[in-house]
């Protein structure tokens, strides 16, 4: 089980997406998943070993690290990637349900089980809303947990067993900050793509409904 699983999952979703949905999948692959695996993971690899406090008191470093990093940035990033990709599964399940129904009844119930209309449209819209919501939740979590998106070089710590206020130094703060901003930028881009897809679908199907009603009135 590795990121390859997520990659295969998203490739499956690509089949039933709109054009904007496919751009979203490409952005998630190239700018989030690939950057995470190829670059970001290695920056945070030895963050605990490289976290240094100006004191010899045993346990002080551990306690201070735990206080300032309740959940490491890189783990939050990984959770965000997984959570944000999962709502697309709803669409895959719905299409599989449609195909199963057709097989069960042994007749063609839908013109095309993969086409976004009717119930599948609702599922697709719900998945978009969930994706956007989860992105915003994680961005807010990052902001609240770390007091903004800055990573300081020095933090002052005075938790027991540290005998007094002790200077602790974070490793590679500038590099971590650059990648954090990159994460925020790609997150915002994905939010914008999701919102445009949502508006596009709502607009398209309202026009369709309106035209159908018009035709019925004329008849």
């Amino acid at each position: 089980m590795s990121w390859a699983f997520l990659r295969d999952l998203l490739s499956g979703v690509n089949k039933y997406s709109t054009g904007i949905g496919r751009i979203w999948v490409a952005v998630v692959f190239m700018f989030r998943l690939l950057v995470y695996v190829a670059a970001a993971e290695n920056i945070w690899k030895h963050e605990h070993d490289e976290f240094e406090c100006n004191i010899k008191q045993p346990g002080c470093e551990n306690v201070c690290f735990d206080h300032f990093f309740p959940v490491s940035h890189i783990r939050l990033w990984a959770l965000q990637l997984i959570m944000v990709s999962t709502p697309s599964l709803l669409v895959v399940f719905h299409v599989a349900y449609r195909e199963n129904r057709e097989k069960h009844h042994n007749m063609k119930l839908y013109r095309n089980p993969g086409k976004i209309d009717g119930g599948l449209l609702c599922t697709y819209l719900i998945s978009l809303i969930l994706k956007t919501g989860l992105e915003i939740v994680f961005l807010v979590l990052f902001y609240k947990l770390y007091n903004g998106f800055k990573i300081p070089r020095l933090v002052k710590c005075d938790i027991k067993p540290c005998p007094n206020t002790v200077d602790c130094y974070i490793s590679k703060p500038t590099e971590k900050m650059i990648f954090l901003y990159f994460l925020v930028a790609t997150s915002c881009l994905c939010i914008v793509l999701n919102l445009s897809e949502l508006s596009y679908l709502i607009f398209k199907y309202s026009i369709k409904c309106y035209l159908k009603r018009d035709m019925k009135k004329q008849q």
Partner: protein
Amino acid sequence: MDWGALHTILGGVNKHSTSIGKIWLTVLFIFRIMILVVAAERVWGDEQDDFVCNTLQPGCRNVCYDHFFPISHIRLWALQLIFVSTPALLVAMHVAYRRHEKKKQFRKGDQKCEYKDIEEIRRQRFRIEGSLWWTYTSSIFFRLVFEAVFMYAFYFMYDGFRMPRLMKCNAWPCPNTVDCFVSRPTEKTVFTIFMIAVSSICILLNVAELCYLLTKFFLRRSRKAGNAKQQPNHENKEETKQNEMNELISDSCQNTVIGFSS
């Protein structure tokens, strides 16, 4: 999920590229991505652990390392490779869109569609003309821009492409100016120069491909214009000949009339 996945995605684009584009892709995968993964990552693997400063002051080493390496070479290369590969996705999306349109035409039973089955549409290689030419050319342009930007960022951040053995640091909390020693500076310099050289080769290949596409475009245009001109000229010559003949006939008629009358 790793560089292998990128290889699969870009491999599909390879079919619709020019020959220079195919060479570019090969250079990218063999001389850049493979070297990065197999060799360069090991060289930079212990960069912070083996970055040693001549002081026992806790925190001085961390701060000095952060000051001299705001973003590590290896991460910058990884980002460069990702950004430089991304424009090829535009071409992949355009090709996928065209295939989708052809499949739609085929399913509707359009007589204009010249394919026998869907498999043929999937296997078909599209020529680089029309709107695909514009997409392809823009992707090469963006590739060039990204390569140049990253090369400049590298040069600007590290004051050239050499890795020094010794750096002098006096950032707080270092008590005074402290000597800090970089691990494996010569090996890092060698790899940096290698990556820069291959980057320059890729820039040259992209420029050559751009020139080739533009030349092809203008040649095609001039050939079309040439064909269009020849046909009206040919018609004009015939018209003037006919006019001359008509004049001769009318002249001879007049002469005979005058001759009769006189």
